[in-house]
């Protein structure tokens, strides 16, 4: 975000505050920090974590309902064990185009959150996602995914039915699906549970979403050996959209409405919908082989290291470029 944009936002905020008599000191502080430094401070990273976890943010079904103008059908079940309400999926008509959608689904009320297990998937959720992805491939529908989970659920049933296997299979199978896949991190992108529906041709993050190998709390207690240092850990983990864009892990950042996505679901849906349409216009022009090659290329380039002997860094990537 450029400095003049930020100054413009400050002006907008001040007007809004006067009109509605709301406390905007948080937002002002945050912008002030941005002005004073190019890097995200612990406070700033933590604020993103909090915004990403805000239970008023739009969920997968909120977004799909708006993006499809209600023209969607949720499809249930993995045809193996059960239907996981923490991961939803189905078919939607977006901008005239049929797509398969898959996403973590948090609740908003406590009752809904208990039913949906706070968006933390069990193996059957990941297997439903895979079933729907293969269905999409068979019928040439692009896939869009919405990532919003603290992680896969670490419980007995999850281990008994091997959530590890379920995630692993998705990682492998999604890498060679013959249709365009576009992923959106819309809230929390937590670890393997997020990545399990996160392999695509393009990955975008909402401005205030986060994406990390471990929660700041987990990192604080394991690596910093102090559970109270979650805010510090959030900054150390480099988990904001800006960090990931800089690392080359994601393809872009989608602006949220003023104050965060929770302030205006429709506007958030519109931004994502625009990106879906742009991405699919670009990706649908490519052959399945090209889609897979580009996706594979991206996946093979993930990682930073040095190789003091030939082949040099990027060896695997070049291998797939040649094909």
């Amino acid at each position, binding site marked *: 975000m450029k400095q003049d944009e930020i100054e413009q936002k400050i002006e907008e905020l001040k007007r809004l505050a006067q009109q509605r008599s709301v406390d905007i000191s948080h937002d002002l502080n945050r912008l002030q920090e941005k002005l004073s430094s190019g890097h995200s401070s612990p406070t700033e990273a933590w604020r993103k974590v909090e915004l990403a976890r805000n239970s008023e943010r739009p969920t997968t079904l909120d977004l799909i309902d708006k993006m499809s103008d209600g023209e969607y059908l949720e499809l249930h079940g993995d045809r193996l064990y059960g239907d996981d309400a923490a991961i939803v999926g189905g078919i939607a008509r977006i901008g005239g185009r049929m797509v398969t959608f898959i996403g973590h689904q948090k609740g908003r009320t406590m009752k809904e959150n208990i039913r949906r297990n*706070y968006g933390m998937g069990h193996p059957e959720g990941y297997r439903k996602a895979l079933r729907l992805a293969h269905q999409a491939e068979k019928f040439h529908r692009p896939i869009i995914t919405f990532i919003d989970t603290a*992680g896969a659920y670490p419980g*007995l049933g999850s281990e008994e039915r091997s959530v590890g296997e379920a*995630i692993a299979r998705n990682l492998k199978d999604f890498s060679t699906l013959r249709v365009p896949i576009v992923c959106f991190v819309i809230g929390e992108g937590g*670890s393997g549970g997020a990545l399990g529906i996160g392999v695509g041709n393009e990955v975008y993050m909402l401005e205030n979403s986060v994406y990390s190998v471990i929660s700041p709390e987990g990192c604080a207690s394991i690596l910093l050996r102090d559970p109270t240092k979650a805010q510090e850990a959030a900054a150390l*983990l480099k988990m904001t959209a800006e960090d990931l864009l800089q690392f080359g892990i994601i393809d872009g950042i989608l602006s949220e409405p003023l104050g965060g996505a929770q302030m205006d679901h429709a506007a958030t849906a519109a931004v994502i919908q625009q990106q879906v349409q742009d991405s699919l216009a670009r990706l649908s022009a490519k052959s399945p082989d090209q889609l897979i090659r580009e996706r594979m290329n991206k996946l093979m380039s993930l*990682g930073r290291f040095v190789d003091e002997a030939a082949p040099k860094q990027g060896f*695997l990537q070049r291998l797939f470029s040649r094909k």
Partner: protein
Amino acid sequence: MGLLDSLKNALGLNQKQETEVSIAASRDDRAEVLQKHQCPNCHAHLDDGELERDFFVCRHCGYHFRITVQERIKYTVDLGTFQETASQVYSINPIGFPGYEAKILEARTASGLNEAVITGTGEVKGRKAVFAFMSFKFMGGSMGSVVGEKIARAIILGAERGLPVVLFATSGGARMQEGIFSLMQMAKTSAALAQLEVSGQAFIVVLTDPTYGGVTASFASLGDVILAEPRAMIGFAGPRVIEGTIRQKLPEGFQRSEFLLEKGFVDAIVPRGQLPEKLAFLIDAHQGRIRP
């Protein structure tokens, strides 16, 4: 919202991501047996030469001691056939995590290895294969960029040369010090396996004690055949994390090889001494299409 969060805290749901804890990283059964000459399981007397000849398996109760990568190679690959690959791929500190460089130096000293995985080509009972051996001694076998790169390269080497890939897994999970890069190694290694599949070559996994986290949720669960050593601890989330979530003790035997066999995720449990023979049989049974 405050209410929800406090509820989640009460349920232990905000701590759920401590998946990648190094499991029992402190347990050192080898040091114990060297000092006491006793099996930590059945307390029988074990002398050093005997243990060495028995592949570090207690001949009285079948207890499998953890072994080093160097020993694993010796017990698995035909003498003189192992040729290491990608030996000069080294870690950097990709997200500038404080103290990571020091940790790596420490791990090198402790393990005698450059990284948490050794890859190479070799033969098992005369059958050529690509091998990958993970080391728990190197930062708990955690997967960062180098582990992901080396394993992906080994897999692609198998695809290119028309060789099966045999991998011995052990890991505490992702290497958190590399942040999002460590997470992405799960996708990278799994995608490499999709390419091995296209080549028609087999991927054979041997799960050893312990295998957890991001490794379980990627290549270690994707073997055409998955073997496990007896009584190895294997899972996605660590036992302490699960206990923290469900607020009760885990059942006896939970996440052991035998549990995974019963739950349908392990093809067969094979005692260490029989592994070379079983691997040779499986390589014979899994001839790919391309075999130059």
